[in-house]
């Protein structure tokens, strides 16, 4: 009997038009737990590094987390793992909602999609019945509309749908995969789905998911509903806070350029709340979680859509417009299926190039004068890959190089070809420096999260924080207690902080728990409902896999190194591990490189950022070290200079 997981993957070859239900190896679950861990293993085994992300040979994998379908509250984030056309590297993009649990109830832990369909299709999964169906009638339809149409067509109101819109169909690199109130938005996963000509996946499942130790697991979960509901430090507090000053006064407007420190005021708050009351129809949650982090927006003339987090502001801030514009354009981008982080930056970048005379009226015929109209104009070009839109749809980094004429200078906010959060700060913060440099997600919100971002100035508050900080291993308590304002922590501390922050995300991404209940939320208030010290027991009770905190960390490290190895095999090295040049005004290159050396050393990587044979073998990733040696990435004798030796 398999607990928590179903023990089967669904293999779909869109070129052949075939579907297969394939049993999985329980040993792989013990090694990687599930989610992106096992997905990374499949990508390692089956997608050679020279594979073009948009080619039929790339795999697109939808993974449930190990705890999906169990009663563990907040285990509902589905991983979409593939190789990204934007970065050329591995991407793991996550979405909440109900999709993963439904897939598990249908009897599958993963959907592994290969090939390319001859025409637009959708995949219909109803328990054991799986069909690849014609989707020509859905061509060009919005993501949310597609879901509704499929529910009607298949007469299944409880169908869960993940769909691409026009952006995905046209292989735009900002394209998302939208599902209900959520979306997998990072690094062009929607473009990969579009390249496979897969418009949507519709899932219905009515099977059981079994758990190992029923009574004990329920006892634990039963208490979690109230705990999570009451815990003000988890979920998305900003979803219910009308004071937007944190974002609008501190983050940079336009093409990540201008800080408007006094933008927020009472009058503006009143206006914004007034509009919010008009357009918001409900706060909504995800499967089996009492937090209501999403809300439903009905904007006149737009299809109903769902909003969460910073998306509420990104378009307004990029275009220097008021909030009404954001609600309005999100109605379009949600239907098109476009990422709310990178898209506004791409559009703002184009506006800057136009104002600098690099893009001209020839590139942008009849380009309007005002900010909002310009964004609508550019969005239309990008989503259709029309004219200059075809260039911009490749993202800021690639577009800058295709346009040339000095456009590269305006690409100032990308790391590893990914548009970063528009944030420009004063003095370098070393844990963040390391996270920006080395994070395989290339998106800071999915790397940071367990350790506070800045020192706590008031010693009394600091002491209190540490006292109640049951999520933290002891050494972090000491480092936080000793961290004074305007001081840097010791190098060892910064390295450990980066490692712990990312480690918790790798845990979430394997078991399917939401980062807002764990890996992202410890930094604010220090009381995430899930952490290193209670998750091992929860995993044991649900899945029957005995683990302690060290064991869980080891799985997390194994998955982290395997993901690293996927990128190393595709050419990632130290030379691209750097934050946007102007992320901090005051930098210290020598000290920064010392930190990077120390981090690589801590990780057991070479001076070039490659996991050593010893590190890989210790983590039972011998198949990686063997291939690294075969490919000449590592030498058999291990003669590479390690970061430790260099230091």
């Amino acid at each position: 009997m398999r607990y928590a997981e179903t023990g089967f993957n669904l293999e779909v070859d869109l070129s052949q038009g075939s579907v297969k239900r394939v049993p999985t190896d329980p040993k792989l679950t013990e090694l990687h737990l599930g989610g992106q861990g096992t997905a990374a293993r499949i990508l390692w085994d089956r997608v050679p590094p020279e594979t073009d992300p948009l080619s039929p040979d790339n795999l697109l994998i939808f993974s449930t987390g190990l705890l999906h379908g169990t009663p563990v509250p907040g285990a509902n984030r589905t991983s979409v793992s593939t190789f990204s056309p934007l970065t050329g590297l591995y991407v793991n993009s996550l979405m909440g909602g109900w999709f993963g649990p439904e897939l598990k109830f249908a009897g599958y832990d993963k959907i592994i999609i290969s090939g390319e369909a001859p025409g637009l299709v959708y995949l219909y999964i109803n328990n054991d019945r799986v069909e690849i169906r014609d989707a020509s009638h859905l061509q060009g339809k919005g993501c949310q509309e597609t879901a509704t149409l499929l529910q009607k067509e298949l007469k299944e109101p409880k169908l869960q749908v993940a769909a691409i819109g026009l952006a995905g169909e046209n292989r735009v690199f900002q394209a998302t995969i939208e599902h209900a109130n959520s979306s997998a938005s990072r690094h062009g996963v929607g473009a990969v789905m579009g390249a496979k000509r897969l418009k949507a996946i519709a899932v219905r499942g009515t099977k059981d998911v079994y758990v190992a130790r029923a009574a004990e697991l329920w006892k634990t979960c039963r208490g979690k509903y109230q705990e999570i509901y009451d815990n003000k430090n988890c979920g998305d507090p900003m979803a219910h806070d009308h004071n937007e000053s944190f974002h609008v006064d501190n983050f940079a407007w336009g093409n990540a350029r201008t800080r408007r420190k006094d933008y927020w005021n009472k009058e503006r708050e009143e206006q914004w709340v007034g509009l919010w009351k008009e357009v918001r129809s409900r706060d909504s949650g995800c499967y089996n979680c009492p937090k209501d982090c999403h809300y439903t927006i009905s904007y006149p003339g737009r299809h109903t859509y769902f909003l969460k987090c910073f998306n509420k502001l990104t378009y307004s801030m990029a275009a220097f417009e008021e909030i009404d514009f954001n609600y309005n354009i999100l109605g379009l981008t949600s239907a098109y299926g476009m990422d709310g982080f990178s898209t506004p930056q791409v559009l703002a970048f184009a506006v800057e190039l136009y104002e600098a005379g690099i893009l001209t009226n020839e590139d942008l015929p009849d380009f309007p004068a005002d900010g909002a109209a310009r964004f609508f104009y550019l969005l239309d070009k990008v989503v259709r890959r029309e004219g200059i839109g075809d260039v911009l749809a490749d993202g800021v980094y690639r577009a800058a190089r295709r346009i040339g004429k000095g456009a590269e200078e305006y690409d100032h906010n990308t790391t590893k070809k990914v548009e970063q959060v528009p944030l420009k700060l004063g003095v370098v913060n070393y844990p963040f420096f390391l996270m920006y440099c080395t994070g395989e997600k290339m998106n800071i919100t999915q790397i940071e999260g367990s350790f506070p971002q800045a020192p706590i100035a008031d010693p009394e508050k600091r002491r209190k924080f540490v006292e109640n900080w049951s999520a933290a291993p002891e050494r972090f308590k000491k480092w936080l207690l000793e961290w004074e304002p305007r001081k840097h922590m010791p190098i060892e501390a910064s390295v450990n902080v980066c490692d712990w922050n990312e480690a918790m995300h790798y845990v979430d991404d394997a078991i399917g728990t939401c980062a807002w209940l764990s890996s992202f939320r410890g930094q604010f208030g220090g009381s995430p409902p899930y952490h290193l010290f209670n998750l091992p027991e929860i995993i044991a009770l649900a899945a029957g896999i005995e683990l302690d905190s060290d064991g869980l960390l080891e799985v997390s490290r194994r998955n982290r190194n395997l993901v690293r190895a996927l990128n190393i095999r595709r050419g990632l090295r130290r030379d691209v591990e750097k934050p946007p040049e102007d992320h901090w005004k005051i930098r210290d290159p020598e000290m920064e490189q010392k930190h990077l050396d120390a981090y690589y050393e801590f990780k057991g990587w070479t001076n070039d950022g490659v996991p050593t044979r010893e590190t890989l073998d210790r983590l039972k990733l011998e198949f990686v070290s063997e291939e690294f040696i075969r490919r000449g990435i590592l030498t058999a004798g291990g003669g590479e200079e390690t970061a430790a030796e260099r230091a």
Partner: protein
Amino acid sequence: MSDQSKKKIVREIKVDLDKCIGCRACEVACSGFHASPKYSSFNPSRSRIRVVQDLVNDVYVPLRAGEYTAAECTGRQTFKIHGKQYSECNFCPASCPSRELFKEPDSGLPLKCDMCADEKMPMCVEVCRPGALTYEEREEERADEEPALGEVETGLKSLVHKYGAQKVMDTIARLSQND
């Protein structure tokens, strides 16, 4: 007729539609509670409470499974409540041939809510922290359950009118033998 009355405890789940966030924790808890052994498996489609949900039209109705019915209603009523359209099926608890709701997925047998009799309150209510579901027990005065002869007579008259006295008498005779 007797004017005696009896007291009866009514166990009631109150539903505030505006507070439902669609998380379906109620379904999770219910399906676990009714699994055998308890909480050993989870499957919302076995749950005796389902959230009838239409995200786009903002319809969120947690609905408790009631009686089985062999035939679906003749025709439907729809309601417009604060601008939102609801079908009467949105509020109907029946396990009914017109829909999949409240049927065991394997056997198709009807499911019925038992209010988690041995718990302090139904589990769906306990896990609904946003407060869409709340629980109340109250005492209600009930008229003595003496058969209301007047009503029986009215019913019989209508049957006699429809089928004729002989058929009705034959049926009653047959039913009494079965007893």
